[in-house]
């Protein structure tokens, strides 16, 4: 029988009125990969933060290798051989991989970067990482940076690794590579916990799955005996149909024509190169690509938030059929042209909403300037807020709660609800289900499909290729700021899109 690496018994943690973890039990053996599964707010991250020393549990015990331990700080966690790889990388851009890896280590004697570099190389060979130890971080791709983060914790002698949604930023090919490395680490006796929302990944990489729901352990199952449906049922507590109903586009007509768009950002980097495409009414156009391939700049150029160097953005009015040029207009000017353009940005609380304001005030963002009066009109936004809370089942004490207090899924419901309330003719959404659980994700997909039926031209920037293929009608692929291909979503494969995603990303440097 394998030996227990870490065991949690009766862990409780509460924040104010919210019981984030209640009596959670979890066992992880050496030489296994455990998936931690649960909806948003089910307490996965809180639990992992307690193991890695960021939070301290209110009650409960943690055993490592059979001995009770107290983890008060990240340093304690390291001393017990626990290493966490966070979603957001904590690396210094101008340093090399090796320099980042040894940063903050206190070793006796003279510091020898050559020896360190050699050890990094050894680790790479042992687990099959592909990494140049002397490459600077700013020259690296996202997947290479992730590799540095993983080696960083291995270098410190971690035996228990926690990976928080590691695949969110990777292409399908990179994900396959990561899983290979994880399997090698497993064979070496490391214990690994992976947090992910993607059920197919859970099924392909892990040995066992532990499911949390509302802060409590629902159970652990062997992956071999589980299916996507059975896991979803454990997570949600009831049966969920995992189907996106895609209708055929009904008489699609051109709505937004982008032609030859070039854009150079403030740092002087060309972020968009010769982008041309047409978004059609009654259709969902998907945009795939590795994070940072120009998706944000493209949407912001259309929304009037990003200066464009050359090219044109033309909107065709559905009523009159007349062309309207949108390039270099401010959001206010676009609105005053009568263009109903809605935009759900990637950064929900930093751009789409104001976290410290309540739901009503956030509704007002789009409509406050209407009318000649110098004073705010509160009636309409209040009604709208109530309507959205009722219709989209937003979980909130009331409509005067600051939105930052809501959970991720509910924040997104508020934002999407506001953006579709104006009956948009163009609806742009960026990563609308990032960090959302299955229930909320499908609610968002359904809302997008409804907008498509209402003859909006929907532009959907996504990262999960399975969803892009199931939801969209056409998909264009961005790589390094240019369009590397366009595919028909009904006749494509993940591999094809994955290939297009990496096609020109390398050619840029």
């Amino acid at each position, binding site marked *: 029988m394998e030996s227990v690496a870490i065991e949690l018994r009766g862990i*409780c943690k*509460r924040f*104010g*009125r919210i019981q984030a973890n209640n009596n959670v039990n979890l066992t992880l053996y050496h030489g296994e990969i455990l998936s931690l599964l649960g909806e948003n707010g089910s307490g996965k991250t809180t639990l992992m933060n307690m193991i890695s020393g960021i939070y301290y549990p*209110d009650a409960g015990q943690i055993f490592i290798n059979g001995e009770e331990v107290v983890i008060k700080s990240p340093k304690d966690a390291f001393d017990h051989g626990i290493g966490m790889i966070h979603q957001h990388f904590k690396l210094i851009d101008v340093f090399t991989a090796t320099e980042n890896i040894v940063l903050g280590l206190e070793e006796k004697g003279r510091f020898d970067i050559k020896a360190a570099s050699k050890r990094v190389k050894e680790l790479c060979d042992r687990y099959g990482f592909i990494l140049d130890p002397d490459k600077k971080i700013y020259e690296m791709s996202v997947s290479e940076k992730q590799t540095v983060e993983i080696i960083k914790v291995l270098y410190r002698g971690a035996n228990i690794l926690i990976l928080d949604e590691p695949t969110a930023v990777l292409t399908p090919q990179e994900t396959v590579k990561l899983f290979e490395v994880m399997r090698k680490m497993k064979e070496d006796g490391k214990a690994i916990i992976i947090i992910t929302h993607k059920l197919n990944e859970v099924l392909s990489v892990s040995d066992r799955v532990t499911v949390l729901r509302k802060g409590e352990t629902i159970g652990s199952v062997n992956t071999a005996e589980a299916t996507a449906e059975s896991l979803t049922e454990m997570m949600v507590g009831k049966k969920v149909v995992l189907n996106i109903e895609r209708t055929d586009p009904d008489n699609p007509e051109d709505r937004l024509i982008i032609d030859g768009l070039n854009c150079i950002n403030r740092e002087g980097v060309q972020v968009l190169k010769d982008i041309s495409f047409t978004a059609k009414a009654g259709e969902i156009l998907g945009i795939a690509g590795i994070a940072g391939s120009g998706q944000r700049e493209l949407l912001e150029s259309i929304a009037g938030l990003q200066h464009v160097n050359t090219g044109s953005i033309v909107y065709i009015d559905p009523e009159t059929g007349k062309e309207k040029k949108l390039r270099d207009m401010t959001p206010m000017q676009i609105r005053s042209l009568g263009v109903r353009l809605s935009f759900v940005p990637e950064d929900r609380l930093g*751009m789409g909403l104001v976290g410290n304001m309540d739901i009503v005030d956030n509704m*007002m963002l789009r409509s406050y300037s209407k009318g000649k009066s110098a*004073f*705010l009109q509160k009636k309409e936004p209040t009604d709208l807020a109530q309507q959205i809370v009722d219709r989209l089942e937003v979980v909130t004490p009331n409509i005067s709660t600051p939105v930052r207090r809501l959970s991720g899924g509910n924040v997104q419901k508020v934002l999407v609800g506001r953006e579709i309330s104006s009956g948009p003719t163009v609806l742009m959404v960026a990563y609308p289900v990032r960090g959302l659980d299955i229930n909320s994700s499908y609610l968002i997909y359904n809302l997008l499909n409804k907008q498509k039926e209402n003859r909006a031209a929907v532009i959907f920037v996504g990262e999960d290729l399975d969803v892009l293929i199931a939801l969209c009608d056409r998909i264009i692929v961005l790589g390094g700021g240019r369009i590397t291909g366009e595919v028909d979503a009904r006749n494509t494969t993940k591999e094809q899109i994955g290939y297009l995603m990496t096609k020109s990303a390398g050619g840029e440097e």
Partner: protein
Amino acid sequence: MMEAKPKKEPLIHITKRDVMPLWKAILVRVIAIAIALAVSAGLVVILTQKNPLEIFSAMFNGSFGTPRKILNMLQDVAMLLCIALAVTPAFRMKFWNIGAEGQVLMGALASAALMYFLGGSGLPNGVLIPMMFIGSLAVGMIWAVIPAIFKAIWNTNETLFTLMMNYVAMQIIQICIASWATSGSGVMGVINLNTKLGWLPDLFGQKYILNIIFVALLTVFVFIYMKYSKQGYEIAVVGESENTARYIGINVKKVIIRTMLISGAMCGFAGFLLVSGASHTITKDLAGGMGFTAIMVSWLAKFNPAIMVGTSFLLVFLDKGASSIAMECRLNESVGEIITGIIIFFIIGCEFFIRYKINFRSSGKEAAK
């Protein structure tokens, strides 16, 4: 089961509270003031061997001793409140304007200059006072909008910029006084002492009453402006998140400049009231640091104009009390300042207990069982 190892657990850990009920929050603050008084009483006994009640009554007398003192206290509260109201819109916008002192002084200088130069021109008060009013507002606005323009266009640091502008303002006043003052003493003296031209009239036979009424009206105005007007909403959005402001199409530069114009106008207004309604002269110490104290008033009140009435009263009361202790009890003024410091420390410190909860080791263990 393994035995618990309490020695390894942290002694205390701090967690964030939910919203505390209002009565409880008020109770915490009352207790804080009570403890502050007890601590300062103890300290006074140790340091001076005097009866602490005597000290506290002296403190109270500083503001409420005589009708004259009450009126002076109200005037000081009004002026401090006026400047606090002036800095509030900028602070809501997260524009750290610490140049209120200079903006007030420049506004005051404009009023004083008009009084000085037009005092002998035969203009009646009905013309001169409105001119002074407009002049002060305009100069206050100019002084405030300069850093705002630099911030909006070149993104300069407004904190340093506004701070430097204070010293420029003080030096300009020094130059003006040096060239206007006839005696050569470097002191301006009361302007138009005999004609009382440019002096705000007394009301009910009392000076300052008009100042107090004006500031009361201004409080209501700022409250409504910040809470119910579209411009107030824009200020809040820009302050919370510039990205969101851009996203919905607010012209951030315009809002920064417009808000600083309003802020500067109110500072100018405070300068006008100080010269025309109170001192009738100009010195570089006319604002007496109120431009900085006002920031504390505004912040303690969490930018709510209604609460600012209370916080400005508190700070003036403590300040007057401190000097009164020095006089009545023949003590060094430092004793009063120590007491003021203790009270403010407890008032600000108690906010921590309203927002966070402290869990002790023992209570955590019990919960585990």
